């Protein structure tokens, strides 16, 4: 900032009076260009959905709106039965890990924020330092561990690495800072035990942070690929991304069916986004800037 050039001219002051008209034009052009860019951005998603609604004879036409929309592809894919399981597996796994991560991350974040005890800094730094360890480094030992404990090809095997997240601990700790100690002290005097204080007094005050974390953890587990690919063997245990990867690779599968499978694994998160849009964007900013 030290090198800021200051050029005192009167031109700028005079400009402000003449400005409104060109600025409005500028606004419209800017909007149109950004809109065009936005359309390009959603094109792949639009084509995916459009193709999933096309009959085979129409698939390779570039038109976006199907001439004769059909849900035939969805019926075919669901009748096949595998997508039904993969969808169910993904829902169960993403939901269970989200609940676990929300519970433990906020409990740990709260403890590290509001309790004074020996070892507090050590625990915090230890947990934070795990952010530096990439999942890819852990998959080999996790695989060996799963093998010796018989966790391969099970829900638990897919879920256990994600049951707690260091990022969540950090995020929740930041947000518990804003909960006044007086509230907790008052609850203590009322005779609540520490668990009740956390659950009934502190937790409701950090709901926005919990929601942001929930979205991140759910999306992360819904789209997770590497670990589920490694730990599952049987088709029935696949999650949607793993199932879709194998499904697309089957030689005789047509593109409209692959697009249908892709749509099935994308539409749920898109719907969640469209419903909670403002909320999610606020959450992304919160998590991105605090985390």
């Amino acid at each position, binding site marked *: *900032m030290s090198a800021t050039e200051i050029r005192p001219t009167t031109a700028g002051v005079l400009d402000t009076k003449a400005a409104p008209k060109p600025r409005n034009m500028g606004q419209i052009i800017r909007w149109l260009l950004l809109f065009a860019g936005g359309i390009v951005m959603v094109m792949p998603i639009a084509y995916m959905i459009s193709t999933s609604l096309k009959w085979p004879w129409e698939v390779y036409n570039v038109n976006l709106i199907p001439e004769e929309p059909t849900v035939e592809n969805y019926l075919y894919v669901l009748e096949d039965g595998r997508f039904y399981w993969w969808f169910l597996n993904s829902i169960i796994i993403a939901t269970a890990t989200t609940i676990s991560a929300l519970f433990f991350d906020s409990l740990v974040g709260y403890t590290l924020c509001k309790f004074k005890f020996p070892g507090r800094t050590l625990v915090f730094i230890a947990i934070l330092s795990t952010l530096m360890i990439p999942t890819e*480094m852990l998959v080999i030992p996790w695989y060996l561990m799963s093998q010796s404990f018989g966790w391969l090809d099970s829900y638990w095997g897919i879920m256990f690495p994600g049951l707690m997240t260091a990022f969540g601990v950090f995020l929740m700790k930041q947000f518990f800072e804003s909960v006044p100690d007086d509230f907790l002290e008052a609850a203590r005097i009322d005779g609540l035990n520490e668990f009740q204080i956390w659950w009934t007094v502190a937790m409701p005050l950090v709901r926005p942070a919990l929601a942001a974390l929930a979205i991140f953890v759910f999306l992360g587990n819904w789209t997770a690929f590497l670990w589920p690919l490694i730990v599952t063997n049987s088709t029935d245990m696949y999650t949607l991304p793993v199932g879709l990867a194998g499904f697309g690779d089957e030689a005789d599968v047509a593109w409209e069916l692959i697009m249908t499978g892709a749509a099935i694994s994308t539409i749920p998160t898109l719907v969640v986004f469209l419903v909670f849009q403002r909320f999610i964007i606020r959450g992304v900013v919160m998590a991105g800037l605090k985390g």
Partner: protein
Amino acid sequence: MFRYRDLTIRQKQIVWAWIFLAVPVLFYSVIRFYPTGNAVLISFQEWNLLGTRTWTGLDNYVKLWNDPVFWKVFVNTFLYLLIGTPVSLLISFVIAYHLDKLRFGHSFIRMLYFLPFMTSAVAMAWVWRWFYQGVPIGLFNNFLASIGIAQVEFLNSTTNALPAVLAPAIWAGLGFQIIIFMAGLRSIPQSYYEAARIDGVSWWTVLSEITLPLLRPTIVFIVVFSSIGFLRIFDHVFNMTTNNPGGPLNSTKPLVLMIYDTAFNSFDMGYAAAQTVVLFTILLIVSLIQLWLLRADR
């Protein structure tokens, strides 16, 4: 005899803290720290998962150093980073900059840009893979054919495949970066811009002297976040080049795919573990550079 109610308030707090932390501390020890140490340990061993483990010292690292595939993969991994990060940074900044100046229809457009962030990488890899097919299947080549331009080999070409695989990865991350950039732009005090306007400074000077310097923490965050993402690229490569993972001729193979192949196709656990240690080291260096840059800021 130990009785809870005889403890002081401070002692009770300590008891509660460790009750709350017991399960998480166990989790982080067993699921994070132990495996980290284990990965480093295995990297010094020769082990094919069935036979016995034998201690081989630095053999795996020497093998890696002399492996031409590793160097190819190493270059690829950094190509993903060196193309992906600047391109996505530039696009997302330009969009965020103009979106920030937009006074109407703002949240609708922001939604369009953010939607790809909510998609699953595997699903979108397949969509893009379809786009890249030759005539009469692929959308891009069909479009090129319709305006009379020769076909382009995307995924089958050793030179085009890497950018073609990278494109959807950049595309999916833009929305996130735009949102973060916009939050950064919002946090710049309006009074600076007003002062600049009164002084009649050009938009370019405002951008280079006010906006960009004040955005520095945001830029550092995005650069590091996306760099780590590109260094760990896997889902897109695996799904767009599956008939020949990382192909053609290893031209798209990133380090994580090499780790996956070595560990779960060749079952050469020691060698794969050594590769993960290299990945860890690279990521650590990138993160340390970030810390250093942020510190220089203050």
